């Protein structure tokens, strides 16, 4: 109880210890999450993802500065980097690009390794975000390397997802292959002072047009005819068309414009009711996962190892099917 209280009262040592407990999924961490939950639901979660080398960390650095200076909001950053699949170790280097944020107690940066968990990354990241949310951080930026399903899952936690690209990192086919463009609410072309920025923007625009055909242009007897695209989903809410923003994060260029684009997205989310939908979907996933986990735990407590092994033997000798075995085990559990 005192631990959660200290976090709510802004104790930074208690906060950092609790983040570790939650990341390690300890009983203390779980208990604290239960106590803190009623204090969550106030923060705006921003996901930042994209290929290595696009400048995500520098962009996060600038975004955090923007929220500190122009909106005076408290900002938490969760920077996720991959663990080595061979040793389990990791070098977490995102802080190198975030030194402008040092010395400001309104900013809290936490580095996190993926730890090769089986889909558990999204949940531990979500739990850590909840701790920051309860501790009163109004903006929570989650940075991940956009290179796999687990990162996509993490990005889905966010209310607003930025996908960061940079000129010269592959052609438009790469963009299609990567698949992460589909999760973008805002596409950021960082390093926009580099040559090739026009081509990158054109490729991204084409991608967006394929995904979101607001209207189509036909050539008819030599003149262009515009036609509204068929409505694909029946919804009264206006659809959000991802915007493209150019930035040069190392110089802070384009950051206010990006901040405004994010604000427009938040406005869209709240007005269209999508914000509530996303919260609902996220909490539903969390609830389902916890139910499943709890059921498995209870099952393991009630069914002995011998029962389980003998059942497995029967399945192996084709005396029982796995489906029958599950029924028998569950029935013996209830008794």
């Amino acid at each position, binding site marked *: 109880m005192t631990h959660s209280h200290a976090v709510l009262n802004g104790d*930074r*040592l208690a906060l950092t210890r609790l983040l*570790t407990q939650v990341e*390690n999924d300890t009983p203390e961490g779980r208990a604290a999450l239960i106590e803190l939950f009623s204090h969550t639901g106030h923060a705006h979660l921003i996901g930042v993802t994209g290929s290595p080398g696009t400048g995500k960390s520098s962009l996060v650095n600038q975004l955090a500065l923007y929220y500190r200076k122009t909106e005076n909001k408290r900002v938490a950053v969760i920077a996720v980097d991959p663990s*080595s699949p061979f040793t389990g170790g990791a070098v*977490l280097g995102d*802080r190198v690009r975030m030194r402008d944020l040092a*010395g400001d107690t309104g900013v809290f*940066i936490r580095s996190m390794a993926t*730890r090769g968990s089986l889909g558990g990354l999204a949940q531990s990241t979500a739990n850590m975000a909840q701790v920051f949310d309860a501790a009163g951080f109004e903006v929570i930026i989650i940075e991940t390397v956009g290179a796999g399903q687990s990162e996509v899952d993490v990005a889905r936690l966010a209310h607003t997802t930025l996908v960061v690209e940079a000129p010269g990192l592959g052609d438009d086919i790469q963009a299609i292959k990567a698949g992460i463009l589909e999760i973008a609410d805002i596409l950021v072309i960082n390093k926009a002072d580099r040559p090739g920025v026009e081509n990158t923007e054109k490729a991204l625009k084409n991608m967006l047009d394929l995904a979101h055909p607001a209207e189509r242009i036909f050539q008819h007897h030599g003149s262009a005819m515009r036609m509204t695209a068929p409505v694909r989903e029946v919804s009264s809410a206006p659809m959000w068309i991802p915007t493209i923003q150019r930035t040069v994060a190392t110089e802070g260029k384009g950051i206010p414009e990006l901040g405004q684009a994010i604000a427009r997205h938040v406005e869209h989310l709240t007005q269209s009711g999508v914000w509530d939908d996303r919260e609902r979907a996220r909490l539903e996933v969390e609830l389902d996962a916890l139910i499943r986990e709890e059921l498995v735990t209870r099952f393991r407590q009630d069914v002995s190892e011998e029962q389980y092994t003998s059942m497995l033997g029967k399945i192996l000798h084709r005396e029982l099917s796995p489906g029958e075995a599950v029924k028998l085990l569950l029935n013996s559990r209830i008794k």
Partner: protein
Amino acid sequence: MTEKKIRVLVAKPGLDGHDRGAKVVARALRDAGMEVIYTGLRQTPEMIAEAALQEDVDVVGLSILSGAHMALTPRLLELLKINGQSHVKVFIGGIIPDEDLHRLKEMGVTGVYGPGASTEDIIRDVKQSVEG
């Protein structure tokens, strides 16, 4: 419940720009299965203590080649204490004259490693200092 990992902050205080040693040590600790937070060049003791707090590390490794270790180290140890992190172990790599070794150990530094030190020794000492 996932396994508890040793978290190490590798930091480079002071004004010299030679970070080769810090990177070698960061890499070695990673290969030993630890999570290493690397902060880059020209950090003040205040920045290092702040990062150590935010990252809830078990160990801080300082790389100091500038000769300022007798000023930077006690300052960091003091800041860690103020932040309630006196449990955090501190080790130093760099050019440290023999006459300072004893005084640094007295302050509570768990290890001092000069040129030619083996990364195996550093890994072993870091594990020992955390696990006791």
